[in-house]
């Protein structure tokens, strides 16, 4: 049993943090792995005064655990030991957030190497300093090592043949690997006498002699041993699909397989990163790994890990965590979910029912992972359109600092003091001015303040009036988010009333103040306005600790409501004015930072157009995105490799995008009308112009059409065909017509904003029937 000494651990840590081992990034076009600038791996000053708070005494139980583990995981698979009842964390066990072993701190959420039981490696071996594959000495300041992107072996620059002066740009593959690829015999240099090739922890992990895991919880057994519950990682070789060609060398998969390990089998930290972090970590040491997918051990399929900023995932995790800390048996449910308990369920529930979902949904996943499409080299235009899409939202909205400050002071004022008083804030503004986004950004900021301990913790609940099937369902929604139970709305209303007026306990989050964000508040207005009354009445009760933030479009919503509601809504209002064109340009430019895809002044053109009409940021983004897509399509049609590289969005693209949004589509549609349809339109304009009215009857129209036809030697196809043509125009929305049953007295009307001018514009130069222009 290896018992790492503090001194050694400190070295390990310095190594892993300071040693600059470039990760292989074969597909990445972004940051290039940098040199292996190994500083001296000697011991450095660590926070050694950070006294070990709890030193585990591992001797008796660790051996037991070791035996147990060795019994159950003899294969390469990190099989979760079947947990006997006695080993389950009881309520008596103490949960920790971090444990210090030696002077290395293990926290919940950290990634660790876990030793495999029964490995034959000698314990004395130092697995942390990587040596050159040629001369078998570690790197030093003078001797820089670079890493092969294929075999991950390190080489001194000098030891290469021919030696390299500096780190080459792009991917580098060592001569051994290229030889191997060419089918040549490869002879690796033999190590000098008395020295054997040492393997680093990374190599051991990738060859399956170590495991990696992520700590989910830490507790102490009654006998004083420390245990960790971990989620295992797997290497691509350990999955059913095997290693696929696009897998990175350092790629791992997170599994949904949980396991308990005793703390002594932990080797040290490793760093498993998501793609973005990995891309940034160019020289963060040897122990970094790439993880993009979760591997389902039951279904043998893959699922992408959610992005960190995903609100939903955050919520899930926090609630899970709370369940854990309360000593609930949530953990067991979750680990069981992975096992066969669901599969063996005799009665299979429907997938769209609430209970059946957990069984069916895991099946939607890929059987093989796809190559990350983001890793592929993107053209400038593709990058631009991705950055401009509405889904890719920046962390903080630009140009809304003042409003955000106001929201922040409001929330802080409400929850900051000793007494948490209920309050209301009404936010209004036209769509697309960043209302919801600002509130969310403020909440994120406050959350980080809570995490750092500056602010009291609070609970943030978000609902949207548009997404409720009926206004009453908001009670249900709120109650479910508060307590986690789904009940009918009447029961939910009752419980919420109890909670806010009497302080009755409700779920687990009851002590905290609650910030309730209601988007699209106006959708909650019912005939007797009881829903709004109830919700706005809660903050006024003592001990409610409820803060309501309502968002809607109309400025004077409180004035439309009955006085008892508007008085409860209070006077605190916040207005989001439409963006002006400078702000819009700033928003777009902030997203396009580093992407030179637009020609000069085009963004300003689009922003001015949008600012003049609505000031809707979404619209401006959409126009620019649309323009970049148009440009992309144009470039694709050219199919000239030279032109492709330097293509940018030009004036025609942005004009096309603006036309799509602002121009009336009727004109194009009129141009596409059938010949007879055009004659009908002309006759209509002519007749309307003559009478000066807004509408005309079918009888008048038919007279006109017949006279036009006879004058220009067209065959009049008959009343029924005329009626048919009118109906087609009516279906297309070009004209408005009554139902054809009325026949002669059917009323017809042009359906364009500028009436006859549009028709004139559309039909002026019609090649089929040039005489039409005489009448326009």
């Amino acid at each position, binding site marked *: 049993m290896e018992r790492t000494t503090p001194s050694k651990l400190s070295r390990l840590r310095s190594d892993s943090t300071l040693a600059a081992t470039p990760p292989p990034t074969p597909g990445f076009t972004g940051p290039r792995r940098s040199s292996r600038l190994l500083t001296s791996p000697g011991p450095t000053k660590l926070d050694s005064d950070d006294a070990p708070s709890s030193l585990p005494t591992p001797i008796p139980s660790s051996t037991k655990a070791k035996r147990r583990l060795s019994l159950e995981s003899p294969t390469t698979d990190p099989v979760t030991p079947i947990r006997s009842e006695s080993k389950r964390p009881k309520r008596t066990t103490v949960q920790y957030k971090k444990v210090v072993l030696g002077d290395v701190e293990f926290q919940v959420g950290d990634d660790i190497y876990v030793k495999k039981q029964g490995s034959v490696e000698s314990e004395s071996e130092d697995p942390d300093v990587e040596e050159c594959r040629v001369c078998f000495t570690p790197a030093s300041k003078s001797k820089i090592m670079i890493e092969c992107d294929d075999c991950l072996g390190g080489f001194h620059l000098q030891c290469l043949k021919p030696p390299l002066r500096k780190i080459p740009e792009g991917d580098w593959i060592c001569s051994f690997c290229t030889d191997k690829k060419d089918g040549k015999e490869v002879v690796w240099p033999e190590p000098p006498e008395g020295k054997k090739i040492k393997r680093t922890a990374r190599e051991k992990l990738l060859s399956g002699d170590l495991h990696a895991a992520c700590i989910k919880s830490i507790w102490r057994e009654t006998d004083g041993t420390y245990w960790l519950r971990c989620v295992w990682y797997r290497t691509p070789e350990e999955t059913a699909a095997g290693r696929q060609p696009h897998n990175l060398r350092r790629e791992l998969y997170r599994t949904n397989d949980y396991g308990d390990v005793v703390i002594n089998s932990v080797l040290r930290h490793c760093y498993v990163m998501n793609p973005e972090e990995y891309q940034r970590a160019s020289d963060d040491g040897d122990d970094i790994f790439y993880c993009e997918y979760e591997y389902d051990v039951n279904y043998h399929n893959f699922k992408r890990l959610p992005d960190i900023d995903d609100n939903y995932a955050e919520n899930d995790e926090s609630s899970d965590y709370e369940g854990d800390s309360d000593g609930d048996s949530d953990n067991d449910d979750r680990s069981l979910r992975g096992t066969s308990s669901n599969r063996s369920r005799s009665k299979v529930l429907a997938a769209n029912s609430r209970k059946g979902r957990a069984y069916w949904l895991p099946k939607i996943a890929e059987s093989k992972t796809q190559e990350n499409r983001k890793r592929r080299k993107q053209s400038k235009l593709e990058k631009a359109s991705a950055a401009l899409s509405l889904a890719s939202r920046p962390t903080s909205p630009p140009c809304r600092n003042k409003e955000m400050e106001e929201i922040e002071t409001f929330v802080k004022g409400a929850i900051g003091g000793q007494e948490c008083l209920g309050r209301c804030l009404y936010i209004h503004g036209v769509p697309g001015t960043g209302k919801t986004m600002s509130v969310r950004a403020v909440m994120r900021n406050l959350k980080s303040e809570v995490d750092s301990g500056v602010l009291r913790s609070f609970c943030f609940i978000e609902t949207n009036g548009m997404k409720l099937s009926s206004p009453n369902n908001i009670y249900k929604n709120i109650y479910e988010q508060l307590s986690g139970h789904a009940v009918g709305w009447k029961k939910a209303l009752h419980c919420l009333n109890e909670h806010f007026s009497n302080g009755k306990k409700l779920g687990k989050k009851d002590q905290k103040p609650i910030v309730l964000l209601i988007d699209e508040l106006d959708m909650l207005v019912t005939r007797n306005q009881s829903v709004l009354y109830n919700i706005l009445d809660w903050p006024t009760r003592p001990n409610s600790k409820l803060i309501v933030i309502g968002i809607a479009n109309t400025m004077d919503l409180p004035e439309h409501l009955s006085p008892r509601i508007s008085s409860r809504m209070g006077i605190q209002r916040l207005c989001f004015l439409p963006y002006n064109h400078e702000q819009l340009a700033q928003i777009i430019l902030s997203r396009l930072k580093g992407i030179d895809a637009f020609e000069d002044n085009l963004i300003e053109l689009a922003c001015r157009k949008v600012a003049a009409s609505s000031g809707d940021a979404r619209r401006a983004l959409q126009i620019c995105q649309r323009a970049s897509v148009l440009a992309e399509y144009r470039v694709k049609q050219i199919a000239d490799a030279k032109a492709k590289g330097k293509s940018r969005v030009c004036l025609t693209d942005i004009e096309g995008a603006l036309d799509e949004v602002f121009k009336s589509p009727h004109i194009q549609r009129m141009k596409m009308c059938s010949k007879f349809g055009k004659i009908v339109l002309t006759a209509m304009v002519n007749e309307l112009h003559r009478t000066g009215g807004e509408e005309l009857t079918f009888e008048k129209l038919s007279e006109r059409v017949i006279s036009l036809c006879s004058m220009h030697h067209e065959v009049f196809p008959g009343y*029924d065909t005329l009626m048919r043509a009118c109906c087609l125009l009516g279906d297309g929305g070009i004209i408005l017509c009554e139902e054809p049953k009325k026949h*002669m007295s059917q009323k017809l009307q042009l359906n364009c904003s500028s009436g006859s001018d549009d028709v004139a514009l559309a039909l002026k130069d019609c090649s089929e029937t040039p005489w039409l222009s005489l009448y326009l």
Partner: protein
Amino acid sequence: MEVSEQAAIALRQLRERLCSRTLAHSLLQFSSDNNFSKLKFHISSSISAACSKVLLLRGDKGSGKSAVVELVLKDLKAEHPDFFSVVTLYGLLHSDDDISALEEIARQLCVGHKFSFSKTVSLDENKEFLMDMLKEYGLARKTVVFVLDEFHLFTQGKQWLLYTLFDAMETFTSQSIIIIGLSCLEGSEQQLEKRVRSRFSSCTLLFGPPSEEDRRILLEQLLYLQKDPSLASKYVVEFNSRLDKIFSDKKFKEILSYVTCADGSTNHLLRFLFAASSYMDMESGFLSLQSFDSAYSLMKRQPKFASLHDLSVLELYILVCMHRLQCKEETSYNFNSVMKEYKAIQDAHKTSDNYSHAVCLRAFEHLLDRELISFTDTKGRNDSIKFRPVKLLVSSRELDSSLKANSSCPTILQKLIDHESYM
């Protein structure tokens, strides 16, 4: 082989092609810069870039919107198998309430994955199911394509479905939800509610009638017989060369321009060709100009005009009377005033067509049933027919020509109407 047998086989081959929903549109997909390639580019680019998109396809009825969507999705399905699921909703069926649309979405998603599906779950459960599915799809890097047929019907009422979908497109990052709206009504996006509209951005594809060149391609590809083991090659050559002759005929071009003048859409053309194929001469086994001509006369049928032709004399009298009343600028008239006019004519001209009041009422009711005349108002159903105001639904020109065409029409009626119109 007998000629008639060969003709039957040939006819079957033609009809198979003419009745296929997508064949005609797939023939046009190779012409440059068409909607097929644009749509395919948009969908496949957003699948590969994992970004969401709204596509709006607009065009007249029968211009092949849904057929093109079908083709593109089929094509993509072959390229990326099990990469995306398609949910198709029809505005007429699913736009009126949340329940039916959500249930349909859940059902189609379940069927697509061979999940079991329950009809009895509540609306909220279905909604949660949709959201969970979208999340799972995002994690599994799959795409959901929502095809909303009759898109303009979804833009009415509360529009919660569009809001939910658009909001999901914003919320779930790195996920592609593609919404394809098919609409023949112009300006349907104007009806969107302001907050839905703010989230709505679409690229629009416009579907128009086929061009002259496209139409030629269609005719040739659809009507030329293909080589078939069951057909004698001599027959095929003969059939095609005759068609060639017809296509270059001036008369045929005239017929074609008449057919397409009111409705130039592809489907209308197909319908015409199908009618023409039905007039194929089975004795000789060839399509002739005659068959196209009779197909055209079938297409240009005028039901209103035809129903005027076989009216009885009394009914014609009543129509003329009503027309006279209209010309006298009497704004409102009912059966009694029509009868007064009728009696006046009878008194003045002493014709043999003097019928009793009851018979006239029968004729009047008959006209009402034929919708040649109608009540001006929908209210007052309980009143007697005699007193309800009525109006004429045929124009004087139509009436005039029908009187001329009717052989049993008394001359006095024609005189009366001529007198009225040239007064």
